[in-house]
């Protein structure tokens, strides 16, 4: 194809898009709906996975030393723990230190705990982290078998549940999105079919005088692309705007280390790029589908 005629194809494609009126609106609407869902889904899934990852990195095993343990036994326990495979760090905290941490973590309201300073109900603890978070469960079980260890706590169950939920949500989301993507492709290919039928005579003459197939196809290709890209504008607006709002207003929670969502930049832009990419793909695919059927030589 010659560069000179590219302008012609784009003009033709744009003209067709405009002429198809309601069908254009319908197919752009279908793409828009699909992409809003894709966007929200992406933002949710990627953030949930991110949060789960973060939480998993933070998972620590707390081994509570029984209250009756003699001080000289502590080093034996520590040695036993150190011998377990896959341990990254071990830290020993006396019950006094534990209480101090607790008081601190509650800030103002923590004052109430100070009452316990005289009669500390807490245990001495070992805080252990695994080199690979995947090993946490095994290590916890092994520690539980060591003498003088009362109980072992770790947050893995919560993380596992979150991962499970993520998997489930992802599958449901994917099925929904695939169905929507195909609906959008179908609508676009129908819109372009209308153009092709309306231009049957023109196409017939083009073939007769020897226009190449790619020349004949290009305007329809452009039309599909245009429909896809038009359909991605609103979703991108919503995602960029919405996510910006979210990052601004979740600051309060972030201070408490409660949730850490992915930062606006570059995450929101990446999602926007994915959305426009999927929009363009849907459009081009839809156009190829109808063009292939109608423009057979």
């Amino acid at each position: 194809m010659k560069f000179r005629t590219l302008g012609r194809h784009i003009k033709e494609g744009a003209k067709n898009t405009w002429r198809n009126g309601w069908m254009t609106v319908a197919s752009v609407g279908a793409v828009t709906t699909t992409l809003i869902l894709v966007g929200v889904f992406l933002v949710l899934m990627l953030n949930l996975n991110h949060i789960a990852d973060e939480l998993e990195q933070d998972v620590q095993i707390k081994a509570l030393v029984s209250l009756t343990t003699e001080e000289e036994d502590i080093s034996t326990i520590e040695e036993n723990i150190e011998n377990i495979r896959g341990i990254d760090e071990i830290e020993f905290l006396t019950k006094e230190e534990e209480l101090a941490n607790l008081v601190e973590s509650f800030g103002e309201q923590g004052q109430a705990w100070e009452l316990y300073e005289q009669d500390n109900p807490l245990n001495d603890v070992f805080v252990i982290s695994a080199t690979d978070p995947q090993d946490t469960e095994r290590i916890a079980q092994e520690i539980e078998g060591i003498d003088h260890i009362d109980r072992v706590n770790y947050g893995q169950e919560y993380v596992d549940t979150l991962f499970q939920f993520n998997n489930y949500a992802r599958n449901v989301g994917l099925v929904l999105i695939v169905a929507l993507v195909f609906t959008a492709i179908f609508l676009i290919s129908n819109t372009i079919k209308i153009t092709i039928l309306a231009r049957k005579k023109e196409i017939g003459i083009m073939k007769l005088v020897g226009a190449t197939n790619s020349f004949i196809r290009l305007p329809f290709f452009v039309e599909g692309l245009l429909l896809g890209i038009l359909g991605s504008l609103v979703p991108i607006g919503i995602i960029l705007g919405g996510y910006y709002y979210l990052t601004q207003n979740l600051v309060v929670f972030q201070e408490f280390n409660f949730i850490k969502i992915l930062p606006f930049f570059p995450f929101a832009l990446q999602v926007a790029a994915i959305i426009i990419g999927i929009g363009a793909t849907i459009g081009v695919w839809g156009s190829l589908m109808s063009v292939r059927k109608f423009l057979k030589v």
Partner: protein
Amino acid sequence: MIEMKDVYMTYPNGVVALNGINVKIKQGEFVYIVGPSGAGKSTFTKMLFREEIPTKGTVTVNHTDTTKLKWREVPHFRRNVGVVFQDFRLLPKLTVYENIAFALEVIEVAPKQIRERVLQVLDQVGLKNKARFIPDELSGGEQQRVTIARAIVNKPSLLIADEPTGNLDPETSWGIMKILEDINASGTTVLMATHSKEIVNTIKKRVIAIEDGVIVRDEHRGEYGYEI
């Protein structure tokens, strides 16, 4: 320049339109294709611009075997063959000039060359003063002249006309014939399927008669040979 060897054509619905055609046509010839309705005249012409390919046999045009053409090569093959139909097939919203230029635009000829060529063929078919008219503002004969201009604007070596005067009154038809003869005189091979006894018997040329998909007669300076 044209050679058909043992050409058989059966349409998908089972109709046998060509039943063993053997023919050679040299560059620069003017040939009438005659025969009763349904004999296979149009099918014969469709072989030559690869609208159809034979179910058996070979069709060679300008040393190109159309049965072996890849679909990618068809467009370039067609640029060397001009085609004119009974129903003019002009684009109603484009002017005469634009209709002819369209044929060159879609094969990506440079704009300057397009202008030059279009004005040239408009002159050739005597429509220079109607360049800005749209097809609806023209008579049937004028419209047919536009399609002829469109068919020859890319200087094809072969011009195929399937009943070019079929929709025109006798007087207008002579004008069209004059143009076709001129085109032929400049070296272009012209192949014309027709039902016009007057034309065939007056402007004497080679006549190929087809009946039931078979060539039954092939004469130089022949007669139409059918009543009506």
